[in-house]
């Protein structure tokens, strides 16, 4: 757990006015990591870069927390095929609103990170896929890409090294499932965002059948920090086994919602009460969804001593997800909340797999019944049973992501759900 966070100075989004402009970014050591690699190709061979990033253990900030460098090492040896890096800026997990800050306030850090990743994996083309609703941020980001081209960091013969890397920005048109990595690849290919069956994994057969790695925007923004300061330094920030700076998106019933940058492993209570100013209207904390809709809700009494890192959250019974924390006060109606969550997943299921398409629909239907006071206790067990039938049986993890909140919210707030049911039984009888 991190204790000395009060003196922490943001690294991903530092307090530097106009940092989104390339001259300002360069003045503050911007593109130094990338230049350093290009200037010392022996010390910083592609393998060495990958190994350094692997040693730093940058955990994927898109939700799954996978070691970025390790993922890069899955790319096959270069052959005649083109190679791609697809950067995931779909940011659609409810409760998550962090990557847009990178596009707006420090886009070059991300571009530099993506360039380093592209170098390490011998990638030819970087696609940056941004959700369509973020069109204002797309425009902002496109300007940064233009600047990077003008300065010679992108394009042909980068800084005279003979290396060619293109970066193309594109955007979606409204579909949560395009955040799932293979759904995103399909969307990039101009199709419906239907996730693909894995294997083959994208590193083997990704975009147009070619080797492709997918990383989240924030994940890649961490990369220049590692190259500039070393894996050991990076490992010294945050919690054991979960390192580096994290953009915490705090929303819900707090006095000062917003995105905050602090080390991984922040004490949950410090984030809620100190950083985000405590619960609105002096109410009591009821529960926390720690990292986006899919991560299991924790009751206030489960939060004592818990910190925002994968181990601590796992022990507490949840997950880090996207670190999009939704804080819920004592007045929150958990039945309404859960119904709305199932509505979301039902709406966003792409419909390819029967357990997901039908399952999310049934979850929503049964919860609506309970919400409307027409449910019976046995409906709760029916819901729990449905979650086990949905889990692990589908092409992508959306079905799991829909099942978990149902299971954990009912189990952790069973009384509240039963009360809704009982009342209805009396009323009907």
């Amino acid at each position: 757990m991190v204790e000395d966070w009060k003196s922490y100075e943001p690294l991903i989004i530092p307090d530097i006015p106009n940092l989104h402009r390339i001259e300002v970014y360069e003045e503050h050591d911007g593109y130094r990591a990338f230049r350093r690699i290009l200037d010392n190709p022996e010390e910083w061979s592609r393998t060495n870069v990958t190994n350094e990033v692997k040693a730093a253990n940058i955990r994927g900030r898109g939700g799954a927390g996978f070691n970025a460098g390790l993922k890069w090492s899955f790319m096959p040896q270069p052959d005649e095929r083109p190679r791609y890096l697809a950067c995931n800026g779909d940011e659609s997990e409810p409760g998550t609103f962090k990557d847009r800050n990178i596009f707006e306030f420090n886009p070059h850090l991300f571009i530099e990170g993506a360039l380093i990743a592209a170098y390490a994996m011998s990638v030819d083309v970087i696609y940056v896929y941004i959700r369509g609703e973020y069109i204002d941020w797309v425009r902002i980001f496109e300007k940064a890409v233009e600047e990077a081209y003008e300065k010679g960091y992108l394009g042909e013969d980068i800084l005279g090294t003979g290396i060619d890397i293109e970066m193309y920005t594109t955007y979606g048109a409204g579909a949560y499932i395009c955040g799932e990595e293979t759904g995103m690849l399909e969307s990039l290919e101009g199709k419906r965002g239907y996730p693909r069956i894995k294997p083959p994994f994208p590193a083997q057969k990704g975009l147009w059948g070619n080797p492709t790695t997918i990383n989240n925007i924030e994940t890649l923004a961490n990369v220049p920090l590692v190259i500039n300061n070393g894996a050991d330094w990076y490992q010294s920030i945050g919690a054991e086994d979960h390192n580096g700076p994290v953009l915490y998106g705090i929303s819900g019933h707090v006095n000062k919602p917003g995105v905050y940058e602090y080390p991984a492993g922040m004490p949950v209570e410090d984030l809620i009460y100190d950083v985000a100013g405590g619960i609105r209207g002096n109410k009591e904390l009821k529960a926390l969804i720690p990292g986006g809709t899919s991560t299991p809700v924790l009751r206030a009494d489960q939060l004592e001593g818990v910190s925002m890192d994968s181990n601590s959250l796992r022990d507490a019974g949840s997950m880090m997800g996207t670190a999009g924390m939704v804080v819920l006060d004592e007045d929150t109606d958990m039945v309404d909340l859960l119904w709305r969550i199932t509505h979301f997943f039902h709406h966003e299921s792409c419909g390819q797999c029967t357990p997901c398409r039908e399952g999310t629909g049934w979850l929503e239907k049964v919860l609506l019944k309970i919400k409307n006071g027409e449910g019976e206790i046995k409906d709760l067990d029916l819901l729990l049973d449905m979650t086990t039938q949905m889990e692990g049986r589908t092409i992508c993890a959306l079905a799991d992501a829909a099942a978990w909140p149902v299971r954990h919210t009912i189990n952790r707030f069973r009384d509240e759900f039963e009360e809704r049911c009982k009342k209805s039984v009396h009323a009907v009888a």
Partner: protein
Amino acid sequence: MTEQELAFTQDELDEIERIKAKFPTNKAATLRVLWVAQEKYGHVKPEVQNLVADTLDLPRSHVHGVASFYTQYYKEETGTYVLDVCTCLSCQVCGGYDILHHLEDELGIKAGETTEDGMFTIQEVECLGACGYAPMLQVTNGVYANNLTKEKVDKLIENLRKGKKPEFESMVMRQNEKRKKELSQ
């Protein structure tokens, strides 16, 4: 509009060429060219989808499939302004439904409907990635209106009736004191 009258201008065709250049296949440009078409016509009804398909030399069925999959494409004509109110997770618990219902009352329509004067369409949408600034809405796939109250919504409607859209609002991290100061200057 009959199908014959639908056509892209030379400028639009140039833009489409620039989009195509980003990808190894024409198909990959589908989403972006649908966007170009929607910007031009305000919707992508079937005849507009056909124009996109023909321009990219793709099967019409492919473009129909894509247009129907993505929620931001308007498959029917909408009001001048489409108000996408988020009622998802964080917005739900911060009064997103109150905002939606207030709008419905003020405009005399339900979510999914358009006012008789053709000015406003209301839609209820999923998380727009502005959860810390809840409740919020998006105006016609464009600018976000954050931290809404009923008064703010009334003002927004009043302004939109006059053709005045809200401006892009930069949400600086509270930790970034210097940036905030600069922004307020």
